[in-house]
């Protein structure tokens, strides 16, 4: 099987929430520029899917695609998995330790209490329709607890479906998979591609963004469903020997190692 494609979509969530549209607010990447992907880093990515066939015409390579959403202006996805949850716990532990160590005898200063209150931060509730979000404390974009609802780190967008001609024409078969880490949002979308029908096939990605709103004196993650699109360009060449460049056959090795 060929190398898997990673398709990364960078979302300008702040602008998307303001305009209620993903037009002009997504940047697409894949790791196949060297094979001919076009528009890498823009909204018009065409992902190359180099297929191959055997001499009898049957499909010789499967191609697997994976989609990974990321947020512009947020904590990057390179922090350890579950970072937000871990960070919240570490912060709570630190706050409790400091609370316990406040000396009651000499009186507790207001400043200490205020500082710890700030550290407790704010929690946001999940609204009924929210998908893939765990309730947690608000962190700002540098990973610190914040109680300012205008400074929070945007959660990663959640892909909710992949549709369009590439799916309807059975060029690719996308599905959502669970990673072994089921507790915290461990989901991803992947697809296998039928490379036997060359052509350019657009698809639509359905995405849920989350925005924090204040309702009845509490903070709630409100989900906002939007769509954006990209294309696959399928090519299909005869399978050939990567060493010789010729047709399939035995590798050009001597049957017996050379003597001496």
């Amino acid at each position: 099987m060929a190398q898997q494609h990673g398709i990364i979509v960078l979302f300008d969530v702040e602008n998307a929430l303001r305009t209620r549209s993903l037009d002009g607010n997504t940047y697409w990447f894949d790791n196949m520029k060297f094979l001919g992907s076009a528009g890498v880093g823009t909204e018009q990515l065409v992902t190359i899917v180099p297929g191959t066939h055997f001499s009898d015409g049957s499909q010789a390579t499967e191609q697997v695609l994976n989609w990974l959403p990321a947020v512009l202006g947020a904590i990057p996805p390179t922090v350890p998995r579950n970072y937000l949850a871990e960070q919240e716990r570490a912060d709570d532990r630190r706050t409790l330790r400091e609370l316990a160590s406040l000396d009651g005898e000499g009186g507790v200063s207001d400043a200490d209490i205020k500082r710890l209150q700030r550290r407790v931060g704010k929690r946001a509730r999940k609204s009924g329709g929210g998908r893939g979000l765990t309730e947690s404390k608000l962190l700002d974009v540098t990973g610190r607890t914040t109680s300012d609802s205008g400074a929070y780190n945007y959660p990663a967008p959640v892909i909710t479906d992949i549709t369009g001609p590439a799916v309807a024409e059975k060029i690719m078969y996308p599905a959502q998979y669970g990673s072994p880490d089921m507790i915290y949002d461990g989901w991803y979308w992947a697809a296998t591609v039928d490379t036997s029908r060359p052509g350019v096939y657009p698809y639509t990605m359905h995405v849920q963004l989350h925005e924090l709103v204040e309702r009845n004196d509490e903070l709630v993650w409100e989900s906002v469903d939007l769509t954006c699109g990209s294309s696959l360009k399928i090519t299909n060449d005869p399978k050939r020997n990567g060493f010789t460049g010729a047709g399939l056959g035995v590798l050009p090795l001597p049957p017996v190692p050379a003597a001496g």
Partner: protein
Amino acid sequence: MPPRNRQSERRPTRPVTITAVVDPVAALASENLDDNLYLYDTNKTVGSTGFGTPELHSRVRKGDTLLWNVLPLECETYVALIDIEIDPRIAEPTRKVYPGTDIVFWTAEVKQDITEPVPYRLSFLLGTVSTPFTPTARPALAGPADEERGGR
């Protein structure tokens, strides 16, 4: 049409984030970071230009907090921003890590309003190569004034 956010008019207190998207495998294979570096910021509505190129011009104002971070296209290959060279009269970036990790970001405050674009230099470490990669193309901080003078 989803409902509009009632809070959207209030200006958020987030920093202006400049994100460097790096394709480390392609950059290492070609020894060329310029073609494999894509810069973006969160100030497009204010007029930043050069999105998706290594010559991003970020529109900023005196007092803005800036934050630089990195998004590698290949999560199994190491990429880190190790230096930012910029006129210290404009900004003095400081290296920080996300708490509890060794993932680096840099922050700085814009010290004065900018009239002419101020180019700066980013340096990255990629994979296990010990020599930093510094793109030839240079991003810049630009002021609110119009900077339509041909160049990107």
